[in-house]
C-alpha cells in the first residue's frame, strides 16, 4: 500500500511528517535535523544537490543554485520581473507564459525544481521507515501544504510538482489550517482561532471556528509575496548601500554569466525599475549571497539579543545593528500584514476581541516586532507552544492520517481564498463563486450564443476580487465546442465550475435543450498542460537515471581515492624497502605499483565500471601488504609495553 506522509513545501525550508496512531512526528535526518532547505543546486558534472549541501553551494555556485522557488510557482514571467532581477540564477520564459529557470544550459519550470525537493523529502521518509524496520517503507502518496492565499494556478503547480516527484497528491491543505489542526490535537476545545502565518515568502491569515472537532475556516486572506525573504532583502540592501558609500569592493559582475539563454528569456541579473536605487548590479552573485547569509545570521540574533553585528570580513565590512534599528527598517513590511488581518476579520463578521486564540506559524513570527503586532491586533498574547517551523508539517501529517484512517473525529472545512469568475462583455468579471466560500464549492452559469448557428463559445476564467478582467488573475481559457447549431440566443449552455477540497477548479458544460455535453479544451494561463507534465515526467526519469549515474560515479571515485591514498601512504613509509624485503613475496611490490597506476589511469576518465574494477584489483593486490602492515603495527605497539599493560 505504501505510506502517506505530510509535507510542508516551504519557501525557505521544507519538512516531512508522519502520523502514527493519530500522533504526528516530524521526520528528521541522522543528525536530528528536521529542515530540508528548499534549495536545489546543479553540480558541474550534472548532479543535483538538494537541501543543506545545495544551501552551501549558494555561496560557491550561486548562478547554479535555486532558492525560494515557491515564489515562482504558478506565476508568469511578467509577474516576477522585478524580484527576478535580484536573484543570482536566471529567471526567464516566454512573455505571457510560465516562468522558466535556467541552470547551466538546462531549463526548468518551478514545479520541476520543487519536485527535486519533494523527491529528497520522499527519500528521507523512506530511509526513516526502512530504519524503523518497516517492510512497507515506500512513500507514494502525500498531503502537501500551500499558503491559504495561493490561487488555482499556484495550487495546480504544486500538485504538478508532486506528480513529477512520483507522488500522488491526495490533498492540498492550506498551511494555516494545517497548523490549526496540529494545535487542535492538544486543545480540542471550541472557539474562534486566528492563525497568523508569516513564512519565508508568504503571509496568510486564517480565521477558524472550531466546534465538535470540525475546523471550519470562516475567512482567509494574505499576501503571497510577503515574508522573511523580504526582510532579508531590506537588510542586504542596507549593507549594499553602506558598502557603496564607504568605497568597498566594487567589482563588476562576471561577464557572460547570464548570456546563455535565448534573448527572449534572458534575464540578466541586474537591478531594474523599482530597484534602480540599489547597487545590486555592481556586485558579483557570490558576494550578494555572502551578504545574505551574514544578514540572516544577524536577523536571527536579534530575536533574543538587543543588538548584534553584521560582519563580512572578506569585504572589510562590520556594522553594529540594534533591534530598534532593525525594527524601524522592517516595520513597513510587517505592517503590510495588518490590512489582510482586518479584511479576514471583516469577512468572518468578527471583531478582534471575539478571537479566542491567536496562533503563530512560520519562522518569521519569531521576530519580536511581529509578535508585538499580533498581540496588539488581537489584544492577547499569541500561542507559539509548537515549533512554528514544524507545526504545518505536523498538521499535514494529521490530515494524511484522517484521509487514510477514515476517522471522523476531526474534519477540516476550508475556503477558497479568491473569488472565481468569468469575463463578460466589456471585460467585466462576473463572479460565480465568491471568496471565502467553503470548499468543495460549485457554481453554475448559463451561456448562450450571439450568432446564428454558432457552435463554439470562448470562456475566460479568472480569479480575484477586482471588477475588471485585466485586474484579476487569468486562470484559463476554455472553448466550448459541439453546441448544436441553433438561432442565436436559443442554446442554453450550462457551465458548471467545481472547486474541489484542494481548492482546484474543474469545469464541465452541457447544452440543456439537447442535453449534449460539451468538450472543453483547457489551456491554463500560467500552468502546465497535462501533456507538458507527462513530457517532464519522462524527461525527469531520463535525467533521474543520469543523476543516479553521476552520483554513482562520484561514489566510485571517492572509494578509489581512499584506496589510492592508503596504498601510497604504505609505499611512502621510510622502512618500506625493509618491509618489502622481509615480508613481501618477489614481484609483489611491482604488482601493487602496476595496479596503482592502472587505477590512476582509470580515474582520469569517467568510466565508472573501469574505476570500480581497478579499485577492486588494487584492493586485491594490496591485501597481503595490508595484513603485513597491520601485524607489524600490532607488534610495534606491543614491543613498547609491559606484559601487564596488554
Amino acid at each position, binding site marked *: 500500500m505504501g505510506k502517506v506522509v505530510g509535507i510542508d513545501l516551504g519557501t525557505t525550508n521544507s519538512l516531512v511528517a508522519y502520523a502514527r496512531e493519530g500522533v504526528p512526528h516530524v521526520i528528521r535526518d541522522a543528525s536530528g535535523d528536521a529542515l530540508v532547505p528548499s534549495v536545489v543546486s546543479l553540480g558541474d558534472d550534472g548532479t543535483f544537490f538538494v537541501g543543506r549541501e545545495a544551501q552551501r553551494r549558494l555561496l560557491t555556485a550561486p548562478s547554479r543554485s535555486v532558492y525560494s522557488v515557491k515564489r515562482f510557482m504558478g506565476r508568469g514571467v511578467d509577474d516576477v520581473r522585478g524580484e527576478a532581477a535580484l536573484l543570482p540564477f536566471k529567471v526567464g520564459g516566454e512573455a505571457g507564459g510560465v516562468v522558466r529557470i535556467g541552470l547551466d544550459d538546462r531549463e526548468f519550470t518551478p514545479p520541476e525544481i520543487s519536485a527535486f525537493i519533494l523527491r529528497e523529502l520522499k527519500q528521507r521518509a523512506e530511509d526513516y521507515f526502512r530504519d524503523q524496520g518497516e517492510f512497507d517503507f515506500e512513500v507514494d502518496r502525500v498531503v502537501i501544504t500551500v499558503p491559504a492565499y495561493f490561487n488555482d494556478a499556484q495550487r495546480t503547480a504544486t500538485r504538478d510538482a508532486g506528480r513529477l516527484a512520483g507522488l500522488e497528491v*491526495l*490533498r492540498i491543505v492550506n498551511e494555516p489550517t494545517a497548523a490549526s489542526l496540529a494545535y487542535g490535537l492538544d486543545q480540542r476545545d471550541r472557539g474562534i482561532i486566528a492563525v497568523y502565518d508569516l513564512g519565508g515568502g508568504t503571509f496568510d491569515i486564517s480565521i477558524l471556528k472550531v*466546534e*465538535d472537532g*470540525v475546523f*471550519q475556516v470562516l475567512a482567509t486572506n494574505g499576501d503571497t509575496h510577503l515574508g522573511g525573504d523580504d526582510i532579508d532583502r531590506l537588510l542586504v540592501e542596507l549593507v549594499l548601500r553602506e558598502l557603496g558609500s564607504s568605497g568597498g569592493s566594487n567589482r563588476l559582475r562576471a561577464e557572460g554569466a547570464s548570456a546563455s539563454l535565448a534573448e527572449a528569456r534572458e534575464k540578466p541579473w541586474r537591478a531594474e525599475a523599482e530597484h534602480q536605487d540599489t547597487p545590486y548590479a555592481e556586485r558579483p552573485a557570490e558576494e550578494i549571497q555572502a551578504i545574505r547569509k551574514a544578514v540572516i545570521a544577524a536577523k536571527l540574533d536579534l530575536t533574543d539579543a538587543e543588538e548584534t553585528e553584521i560582519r563580512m570580513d572578506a569585504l572589510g565590512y562590520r556594522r553594529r545593528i540594534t533591534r530598534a534599528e532593525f525594527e524601524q527598517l522592517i516595520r513597513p513590511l510587517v505592517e503590510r500584514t495588518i490590512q489582510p488581518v482586518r479584511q479576514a476579520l471583516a469577512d468572518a463578521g468578527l471583531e478582534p476581541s471575539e478571537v479566542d486564540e491567536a496562533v503563530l506559524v512560520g519562522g518569521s513570527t519569531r521576530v519580536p516586532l511581529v509578535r508585538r503586532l499580533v498581540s496588539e491586533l488581537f489584544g492577547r498574547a499569541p500561542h507559539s507552544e509548537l515549533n512554528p517551523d514544524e507545526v504545518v508539517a505536523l498538521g499535514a501529517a494529521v490530515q494524511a492520517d*484522517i*484521509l*487514510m484512517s*477514515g476517522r*471522523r473525529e476531526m*474534519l*477540516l*472545512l476550508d475556503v477558497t481564498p479568491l473569488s472565481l469568475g*468569468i*469575463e*463578460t*462583455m*466589456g*471585460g467585466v468579471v*462576473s463572479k460565480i463563486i465568491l471568496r471565502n*466560500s*467553503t*470548499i*468543495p*464549492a*460549485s457554481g453554475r*452559469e*448559463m*451561456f*448562450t*450564443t*450571439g*450568432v446564428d448557428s*454558432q457552435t463554439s*463559445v*470562448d*470562456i*475566460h476564467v479568472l480569479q480575484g476580487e477586482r471588477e475588471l*478582467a485585466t485586474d484579476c488573475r487569468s486562470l484559463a481559457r476554455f472553448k466550448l465546442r459541439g453546441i448544436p447549431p441553433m438561432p*442565436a*440566443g436559443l442554446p*442554453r*449552455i450550462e457551465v458548471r465550475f*467545481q472547486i*474541489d*477540497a484542494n481548492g482546484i477548479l474543474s469545469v464541465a458544460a452541457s447544452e440543456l435543450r439537447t442535453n449534449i455535453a460539451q468538450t472543453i479544451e483547457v489551456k491554463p494561463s500560467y500552468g502546465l498542460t497535462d501533456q507538458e507534465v507527462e513530457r517532464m515526467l519522462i524527461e525527469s526519469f531520463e535525467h533521474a537515471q543520469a543523476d543516479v549515474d553521476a552520483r554513482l560515479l562520484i561514489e566510485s571515485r571517492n572509494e578509489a581515492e581512499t584506496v589510492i591514498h592508503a596504498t601510497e601512504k604504505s609505499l611512502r613509509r621510510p622502512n618500506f624497502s625493509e618491509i618489502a624485503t622481509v615480508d613481501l613475496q618477489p614481484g609483489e611490490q611491482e604488482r601493487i605499483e602496476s595496479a596503482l597506476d592502472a587505477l590512476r589511469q582509470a580515474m582520469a576518465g569517467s568510466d565508472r565500471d573501469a574505476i570500480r574494477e581497478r579499485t577492486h584489483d588494487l584492493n586485491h593486490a594490496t591485501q597481503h601488504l595490508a595484513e603485513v602492515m597491520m601485524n607489524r603495527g600490532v607488534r610495534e605497539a606491543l614491543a613498547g609495553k609491559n606484559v601487564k599493560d596488554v
Partner: protein
Amino acid sequence: MTPDPIAVRTVSTLECRNCGAGAPVDEHFCPQCSRILALGRHGDYFSFLGLPRRLVIDQAQLERRFRDLSRQFHPDYFYNASPTERLASLERSSYLNDAYRALRNPISRIEHLLAIEGLPSAKSEDPTTSSGSLRAESRGAGTAKVPPGLLEQVFELNEQLDEIRESRESGGDTATLRERLDSARKPIDLKREEHEREVESLSARWDEQLASGSPADRRTTLEALRERLLERNYINNLLATIDREAASLEARAG
C-alpha cells in the same frame, strides 16, 4: 395541506447507482445499501438540510446540521470509495456548502425562498454572455430602475452628490464637504434601518403564514419581500456611491 404554488424540483425520487433502489429526493444515503446517493437536480436548500421552510431560523441548529452533514459527505472520507461515490460525495458536499452559505445569511435565505416559491428575485437564471461573440443580455431588471418607494430619496441624494463633487473638484473645503456628505447620508441610513425592520417583520409574518395562512396571503408576503429586496439592492448602491465620494475626499485630504 395545500400544495406549494410552483415546484422547482423536477425529480421526485433518486435512484441508487449502486443497488438500483429508489430513494426520496431528500435522502442522502440509499435506504437499502446505505451508499451515498448521487445528488440529482435538487433545488431546495431547506429540505436538503432537513429544515422547515422558515425565514427566522435557529442559527445554532443550522450550524449543527451543517457540521453533521459535512461529517457524512465530505470527500475526505471517500478516498477509498468507488468513483461514483466520490463524485456523489463531492457534489453533495458542494451543495451542502452552498445551502449553508445561502441559509446562514437572512437576505440570501429570503432570495432562496423566493426562488423555490417561484418568485425569482433580481438574481435570475437569464443566460449571461462571455467576452467573446456572445450576445449581451441584462441580468434582470432590478438594479436599473428606481423602486417607487425610493424615488424621493434618490432624487435628493443625487442632487447633493453632484454639488459635493463639483465643489470638491473646484477646491472646496474638505471638512465642510465631509459634513455635507454625512448629512446627505443620514436619510439613506435611516431608510435602510427602516427597511431592515420591514424585512424582519415580513419574515416573521411568512413563518406564521406557513403554519396557518392562506396561499393568497403567503403570496402577498412573498411579493412584499421581493419588493424589499429590490429596494435593498438600490439602497446599498446608493450607500456605495456615498462611500466612493467619501474615499475621493479622503484621498484628496491625505
